[in-house]
């Protein structure tokens, strides 16, 4: 065999190796895999959380015993490249489960809303019954006998909370990633089309909208006739809940992603610039700001009159705007994107990016337990 033939064979062999490698690697895809960041939902001494493996985990909040076997949610995903057919993968879940006396609602990134029996985990209904919608990133809200949720198709959907039957839908101009908030007979919802909408919960008719300069992924806080909403234009807006007129606004250094919190006339607004801003609810006058040193995408909670906020780096702080004090209560050493949850007895539950569930005593900062959700 002469050199030219050898070289040619080498070229052909190399070509085959590269093509096979490429075809095989196309199975794995090149995109980041969505994993979810659902927060825990306490209820009746139990805890419900969606793991990053796409499972509903229901457990006793004290003993950590499972109430029933973890409930998996899966979807068929088209294969990447030329080599792979559809595969079954776990559903990423970003919205915090909503727990009622009968059902637990799970919103899936595969564009389905699941309603399961809260006591057994058995499926009660799924919406839509056939096919899938665009991804659901925000959570669901249950009120007035309906369940409301938005999806990346830009629609706010309203279903019968018990049966999952379609009630109405409202179309916005872009994706919806925020969780709807219901106050009175109105649903408040932000959209990537840069608008905050106030929609009649019974009919789905628009009452008013307010246009910001950026997309809205945060959920609105509605309290005392005022709607507080943060936007990607870095502003926090305080709007009149009745007509959407602007009361005041404040600009931070980065996006507002997490839902604000109000206590004793003070509004606490966490921002991705690493600060929690505190304002007088009526006037918008800034009371103080707490620099926590790391972006805050996790919605804070109120425990015994103290605001608890978590940073992306996994630090939990207690904040008191009245006394202008912040205190590091615990460092979890795991990143946090999920909203915090708190039980009636002052235990904070944190779902970390590493898919571990922590129970932390708010007062002392002691980690009561840490449960890996990976199965």
């Amino acid at each position, binding site marked *: 065999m002469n050199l*030219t033939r050898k*070289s040619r064979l080498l070229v052909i062999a190399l*070509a085959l190796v590269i093509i096979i490698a490429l075809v095989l690697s196309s199975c794995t895809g090149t995109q980041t895999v969505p994993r979810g960041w659902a927060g825990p939902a306490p209820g009746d001494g139990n805890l419900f959380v969606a793991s990053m493996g796409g499972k509903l985990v229901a457990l006793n909040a004290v003993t950590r015993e499972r109430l029933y076997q973890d409930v998996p949610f899966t979807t068929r995903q088209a294969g990447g490249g030329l080599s792979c057919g559809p595969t079954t993968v776990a559903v990423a879940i970003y919205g915090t489960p909503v727990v009622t006396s009968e059902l637990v609602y799970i919103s899936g990134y595969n564009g389905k809303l699941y309603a399961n029996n809260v006591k057994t985990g058995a499926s009660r209904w799924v919406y839509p019954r056939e096919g899938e919608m665009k991804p659901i990133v925000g959570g669901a809200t249950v009120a007035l006998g309906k369940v409301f949720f938005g999806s990346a198709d830009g629609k706010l959907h309203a279903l019968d909370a018990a049966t999952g039957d379609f009630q109405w839908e409202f179309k916005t101009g872009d994706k919806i990633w925020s969780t709807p908030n219901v106050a009175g007979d109105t649903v408040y919802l932000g959209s*990537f089309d840069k608008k905050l909408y106030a929609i009649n919960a019974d009919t789905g008719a628009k009452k008013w909208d307010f246009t910001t300069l950026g997309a809205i992924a945060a959920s609105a806080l509605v309290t005392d006739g005022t709607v507080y909403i943060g936007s990607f234009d870095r502003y926090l807006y305080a709007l009149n809940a009745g007509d959407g007129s602007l009361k005041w606004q404040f600009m931070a250094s*980065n996006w507002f992603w997490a839902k604000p919190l109000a206590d004793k006339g003070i509004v606490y607004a966490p921002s991705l610039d690493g600060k929690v801003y505190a304002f007088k609810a009526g006037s918008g006058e800034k009371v103080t700001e707490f620099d926590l040193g790391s972006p805050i995408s996790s919605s804070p909670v109120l425990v015994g009159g103290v605001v608890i906020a978590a940073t992306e780096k996994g630090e939990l702080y207690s904040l008191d705007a009245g006394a202008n004090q912040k205190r590091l209560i615990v460092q979890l050493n795991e990143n946090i994107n999920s909203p915090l949850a708190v039980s009636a007895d002052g235990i904070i539950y944190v779902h970390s990016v590493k898919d571990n569930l922590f129970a932390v005593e708010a007062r002392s900062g002691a980690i009561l337990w840490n449960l890996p959700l990976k199965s």
Partner: protein
Amino acid sequence: MNFGDIWNLAILSPMINVLIVMSKYLLNNFGLAIIALTIVIRLATLPLNVKQASATKAMQELQPKLAELQKKYGRADRAKLAQEQMKLYKGSGVNPAGCMVPMLIQMPIWIALFQSIVRVLAVVPEDFLSLSKHLYSSWSMVFSAVPLGSSFLWLDLAVPDRFLVLPLLVGGTMWVQQKMVTPATVDPRQQAQSQMMLWMMPLMFAFLTLQFPSGLALYWVVSNVISVVIQYYVSGWGGLKSTPKTSSKKHFHLASRAEEKPAEGGEAEPESTAATPAPQIELPKKRGLLDFQPWRDRGQKKKK
């Protein structure tokens, strides 16, 4: 500061912010922003690309001398041949591996562009959330401009092209570019390397296009077209020049026969065995279908 921080600071964050601003000023069209960015990057690296194109041309011009060396030393003294070839390259200021340099320089740009696309288009919530860390706080418009729209022509720039047009465009334009810069060489090993580059790179990138977001493939297509234009202005069509159709078949037969001869053990003189008007063409000793390079033959014809 670790490598990730340096990467973000020096490459990823600037690219993200520039892309957002460009998109804003280009009719809020992210596809146009990618095209504009490609042109800017290629303009910035123009001296390097022109130098590389010139080197390719010089390499092609060296071929007669390389052929002489091959004839002189042949298989008898491989070491001496290599030594003389290197001397020739050095004396002419040509670096045979120089063609890889622009590609190596572009690799960080591809990676950063891929990372930018998945972030600014809000493909996956985790990526989009991390975008906020890359935005320049003094550029207020970048905060409110995202997420960018992902539609461009028939494409969703966030996902691979479902209609397979982009893989064909990427592979095709890359093949043309490679063909233009493939030097006509008589060294069988170099021929093999050239053929590998000519076919492997387009095939590989066509496959990559099936997996990566269309936005990145759009960059590759535009970048390839610019390379072709630069190469054309420096050295003409180069290896893309084809022999007139009427004679191409005859040349092919000639090459095939030329390949058969040495297999019998003798020193081939293919021009004397051909019953066509091409006997005066000096062909390499071992050539096959993949090695057929008509533009070289035509160049030699002209000389005579």
